């Protein structure tokens, strides 16, 4: 699902792809990232994320765990197989240790718990590391 890009403030803003099936969450994430990032797309179906990631060349991919059809961890694993350099943030309300552990095992760069407000800072940190 493609959402409105609210603003383009920084000249070198990170390109972010959002994989989130909850419309409200996806929209609100877009708003938060709008000033500092370029949201290149939002995907609600797990089976479509890999293709979008290849096509849109995002700097960071934000992946919800409970995606329809293909689970978030599987999405992460598939992207990392194709694009090992991809920065993937697992974005989930479930912050149990085993989930976090499994996220890193499949190649995630970071795990952000929903509702903490840490997503933008994490994206910036990952991009700064890259830069």
């Amino acid at each position, binding site marked *: 699902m493609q959402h409105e890009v609210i603003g383009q403030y920084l000249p070198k803003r990170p390109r972010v792809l959002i994989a989130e099936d909850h419309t409200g*969450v996806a929209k*609100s994430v877009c708003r938060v990232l709008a*000033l500092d990032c370029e949201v290149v797309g939002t995907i609600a179906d797990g089976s479509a994320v890999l293709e979008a990631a290849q096509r849109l060349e995002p700097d960071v991919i934000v992946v919800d765990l*409970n995606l329809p059809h293909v689970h978030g961890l599987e999405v992460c694993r598939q992207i990392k197989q194709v694009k090992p350099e991809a920065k993937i943030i697992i974005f989930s309300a*479930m912050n149990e240790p085993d989930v976090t552990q499994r996220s890193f095992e499949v190649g995630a760069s970071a795990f952000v718990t929903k509702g903490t407000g840490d997503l*933008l800072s994490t994206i910036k940190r990952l991009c700064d590391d890259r830069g």
Partner: protein
Amino acid sequence: MKAGPGRGFPRVALTGLLLLAAASSEAQQVAPQVLLLQSVDRGNLPVDQFTGNFRVELDQRLETPANVVQVVVGPTGLIGPSEPAVFDFIRSMFVGRPKPDLIVTVGGPAAVFARNYRQQLFPDTPTLLASVDQRYLGDAPLGQNETAVAAVNDYARVIDDILQLLPQTRQVFVVTGSGQIAEFWQRELQDSFQRFHDRLTFVWFDDLPFQETLRRCASLPDNSAIFYLRFGTDATGAAYADDRVFTELHARANAPLFAGLSVYLGAGIVGGSLMSIDELARTSADAAVRLLNGAAPTSIRVPPQLVGQSVFDWRELERWGIPESRLPPGSMVRYRPPSLWQQHRVTVLSAVGVVAVQSLLIVGLLHQRRARRRAELHSREHLALAADASRRQTMSALTSSIAHELGQPLTSMINNAQAGRMMITANRATPDTVCEILSDIESEGVQATQIIDRHRTMLRGHPLDMKTIDLHVVIHESLALVAHDMRARQVEATVNLSSNPCIITGDQVLLQQVFVNLVMNAMDAMAETPPARRRMTISTEVRAAVAEVSVRDAGTGLPAQIDGTLFTPFVTTKAHGLGIGLAITRTIVDAHGGTVDAHNNPEGGATFTVTLRRSDRPVKILAGPPSAA
């Protein structure tokens, strides 16, 4: 038997029979001879009843029945000219025959006659003056060969009775008939009635023809009473039997009738203190037997008989509106119509028996129904408690899902708030943008509230609450509860609901519990199924009388070892299951009058089907529309 030829006293009637004249000599030797002198001819109720009873009583007391010769001395027998004729007749009867062993007189005139002529007729024969009013004996003491069974007829007491029963009485009409006996009694009674003259006026019907007596009795003034003493003959000399007199008098009189003798009770008098004729007959028979057995008359002195207990005729009391409360204490009331009990005792007993049995049955059935209701109430309470426990367990299993599900709108709200703050800080916020953000926050808050409400409903204690509900709404709500868990378990659900309305009478929360249980059971069954094949289909089919809800999964199917015990409590194949989910499911469905079945699918997995009766009540949806998940 007629009077002897040439005797010339047609008014003297020999009504008795000289019995056994041609009988064997042996019988004649042993049978006592009794000469019975009656005061008046047949038709006088007191004399007739006394004579009949006396003879029966006498025969009962004698070893050999007596030969009784009855002679009527006649209504003119006091001092009238026919007395010598009667005397001659009697004497002629016994010429050449044994003299009577006993003379018995009945009534006053006969007693007077006997005392006048006994010495000339049978001076040695003992005489019993029976049933004679004390007044007829006068001052003359009983002779050596005489004894008496006298009666003290207290007719003033009859007047007392009248005044007690009918205190408003002002006139008493006295019926005496005509002739010498009537004159005798009028003289006697006028003296004894003297004490009533300040309250009552006495009118003597002694000089009237019978029809005139009837006519006057039919139109007596108010507050009148009739005292019937006797009748016999009217002013024209015509004789009338008491039966006829009483029948006509009773039929025509417009005032209540009173009398002093027991024989008139039942014939039309109200009643009162009555002289018992039956008692006089018994006492007289006793005395007669003693005399026949040789006892000296002087040795037999019977106290004069007084009036007996007050007796009344219920029919007359009713006729004249006399309340029983006015009767003297200890009074007897006769001729009361038999009660329902007396008339239909067997029927009443049967009816009472049937009613009693029916009552017992009804009481038993009521008790049974109450017990059943109590049991049903307890059952419902137990069902509610068990369902509450099971539901809480289910919802506990969904806790992480609930947190995650609630996390979605909360995340959105936090993100939106954060974005708004950043925009304002960066001076990039426009009113439209801020308004849109706030609107999103609001809708997400509503969504969070709905999630909380849905779960809180399922966690709350819940008594059975049957209402008309839409089963499709119940299914949507149930799926909303498990939607996140379903996504987390990578189960894809297909919902295929009938387009027909699916209205039933049921408890929304308990039925949600049923479908949540079945869906979670299906998800559990597909835990080992590859994610790509974790398919579940929830479908409904609406038939004429029932609605079916099926939950079909692609899991491991029903294990054979629990076949038949699938819905039994504590039977489970799950490592961490208590085995109460399906048991509660069936209990809830049972409480709705429905059924739940399960079978394995040919292609694998199992299908659970809940069948519920459709409601025939008017559709009034009490459950809300399905809320967004």
